[in-house]
């Protein structure tokens, strides 16, 4: 509106396309448009790109290439992980299993689990006996002791995200996998690494997980591209039926340029990881410390040491996030309140609620997420705009 400067601080929602990714993708929307399932030279060229992308994605996660199922994004990958494994169990004549997940999972996991429990995912042959939610501590990290208490031989699937999308808390995935191996050896361990992939080394951060979800656009890749990556051979029934692409696990002509973009974005993020993580963490520190100092009644939701470097989740006492976001938008600061629902309204955060934050406090929260394009000037702009906006709202 009136803003002349724009500070984009919503990288957890989507990160701008990296130039090298755009460059890598370009030929597959253009000259090399062939269908990778065909047999002629243009088809073979597309197939080559697809398989190279598959290998690159597999390598960045630490999995064999045949474990990669390209999807339309993180949500589909999560759905395939939950519903696909549950459906495969029933296909194999196994009884309905129990699903265990953390209370702060992304809606893509929670809603898929809910659909399986309600039986509304029957169309895919997916169902489960029960969903158990593991509580989290005040920083949003899963409570391992409580989680252990939910495990048993009846558990079919355990899903704990690598890092939380709203508050950025890094989860102890390797420790979760350890617990599962001991108490529920038959269970599949899934982790949604959509947010973590930018900043964490996936083989390490997701060690022990059987299935890993990634999404390109959070990494500076294109929207509409993601993958579910299996580290070992896990039976997965398809949710999308057709020509049997992706080894029958996901039919439909592959999004070749999207897959190339996902691979390029993962590679690019990995190459810049250390430098970016340090730089972004330092800017995040400036932003958080600056706002804590300048805006009275500001609370940092999570201990910074436990989060991804780009997340800055603050609560401004007595301010409503919906109002603050409107003013920040006017002032050219793009931030968010957490997860948005289909209508565009802000949903009451199940993450903050699980962390023990009361509803009124939760409504005062704003998530600033920094990324590879964030500069000192962006932080300076936010440090000027946010105190002014909060002051206006507090009248």
């Amino acid at each position, binding site marked *: *509106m009136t803003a002349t400067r724009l500070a984009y601080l919503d990288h957890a929602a989507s990160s701008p396309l990296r130039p090298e990714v755009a460059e890598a993708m370009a030929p597959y929307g253009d000259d090399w448009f062939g269908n990778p399932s065909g047999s002629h030279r243009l088809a073979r060229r597309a197939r080559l790109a697809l398989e190279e992308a598959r290998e690159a994605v597999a390598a960045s996660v630490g999995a064999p290439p045949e474990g990669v199922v390209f999807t339309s994004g993180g949500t589909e990958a999560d759905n395939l992980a939950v519903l696909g494994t549950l459906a495969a169990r029933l296909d194999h004549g196994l009884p309905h299993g129990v699903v265990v997940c953390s209370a702060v999972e992304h809606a893509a996991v929670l809603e898929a689990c809910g659909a399986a429990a309600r039986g509304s995912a029957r169309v895919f042959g997916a169902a489960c006996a029960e969903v158990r939610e593991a509580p989290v501590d005040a920083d949003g990290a899963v409570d391992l002791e409580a989680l252990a208490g939910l495990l048993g031989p009846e558990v079919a699937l355990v899903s704990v995200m690598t890092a939380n999308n709203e508050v950025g808390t890094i989860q102890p995935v390797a420790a979760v996998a350890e617990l599962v191996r001991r108490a529920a050896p038959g269970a599949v361990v899934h982790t949604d690494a959509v947010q973590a992939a930018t900043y964490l080394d996936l083989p390490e951060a997701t060690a022990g997980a059987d299935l890993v979800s990634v999404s390109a656009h959070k990494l500076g890749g294109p929207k509409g591209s993601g993958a579910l990556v299996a580290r070992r051979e896990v039976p997965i029934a398809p949710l999308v039926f057709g020509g049997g692409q992706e080894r029958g696990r996901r039919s439909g002509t592959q999004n070749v340029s999207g897959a190339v973009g996902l691979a390029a974005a993962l590679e690019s993020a990995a190459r810049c990881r250390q430098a970016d993580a340090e730089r972004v963490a330092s800017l995040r520190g400036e932003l958080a410390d600056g706002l804590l100092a300048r805006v009275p009644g500001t609370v940092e939701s999570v201990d910074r040491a436990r989060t991804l470097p780009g997340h800055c989740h603050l609560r401004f006492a007595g301010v*409503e996030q*919906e*109002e603050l976001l*409107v*003013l920040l*938008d006017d002032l050219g600061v793009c931030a968010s309140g957490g997860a948005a629902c*289909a*209508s*565009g*309204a*802000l*949903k*009451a955060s199940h993450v903050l609620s699980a962390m023990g934050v009361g*509803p009124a406090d939760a409504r005062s929260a704003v998530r600033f997420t920094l990324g590879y394009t964030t500069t000192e000037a962006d932080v300076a702009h936010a440090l000027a705009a946010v105190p002014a906006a909060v002051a*206006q*709202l507090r*009248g």
Partner: protein
Amino acid sequence: MRVLVAMSGGVDSSVAAALLAEAGHEVVGATLKLWGGSSDSGCCSVADVDDARRVAQQLGIAHHVFDLTDDFAAAVVEPYVAAHAAGRTPNPCIECNRHIKFARLLDRARRLGFDKLATGHHARVEPAARRAPSGARNRRPDAAALQLLRGVDGAKDQSYVLSMLGQDQLARLALPVGALTKAEVRARAARLGLRTAGKPDSQDVCFIRRDEGRRGFLAGRLELHPAEVVDLRSGRLVGSVPEAELVTVGQRRGVGHGPDGRRRYVVAVDVRRRRVTVAGPEDAVVRRVALAPGSVTWVGAPLPLGARALAQVSAHGRAAPCTVAVRRGEAAVEFDEPQRPVAPGQTVALYDPSDPDAVLGAGVAA
């Protein structure tokens, strides 16, 4: 002027936004998400939000979605259920206007730096001086700077659901379509190519799904009780109803005919005693309607005792001549002619007899 337009996704608020933008104001649209349930009608569905957002895009204005579901549940839905449990008949649209649109949203608009809030209601806000007809009996020139007037399209007038507004609210309110007929509104929307141009008017309570209805909605939220139906004059049991909580004073449906074959009206609902009282047309009349203590509001200065007014007791009812009275500390309207009984919980809107378009104030039937 900076104006926040409450855009429901309907044609009236779409055109309200368009008119303000055309007039050169800085306009921002906002759609309220008011109900988390799966209502398919009214102002709460994703489809309506999509319509509002698309219209805002077409007009080139910013658009936000505000989630006021908690406030709406507490200020509108819960009291709606509680009123039915007590045998009253609330008007949730009026309570939404009172507590949400012209309180919560109006405050928000002010905090966000907007000069005014606009809605698509068919009513008008005008400076009082401009309209005061000479020699008007009730006219008190110092009483009000602003008047709330009926919309020019009599059939679509919505001043009744705004009748509880006062000067503070009117001063920050813009009602751009009140000066147009509905046909003009639709024509303007069509000319602008807005996708809401042909959208039907919303009719129902927005948080109640068409397929569940009021009965289905309430049945899930409170215990419904059968009741005996008793004739007012004879005191005799004449029938029964399955759910006393769903019966409204003034209703004719479902309570049968009298022995003379004439229709009967509900004149009282006593949920506690599980009794519905009915009467024939000559007995089902009232002269006096008491107003709930603390429910009376005035557009301008309070009317003096004994002042003459026109009282309207439903959204599209006829306004009938009455006198405003206070007896034993209780405000009431006393009609010149007998009226059908007014259900407790309904709003009684008062209009100016010398300027029948002008709202004077409102109260809620006790």
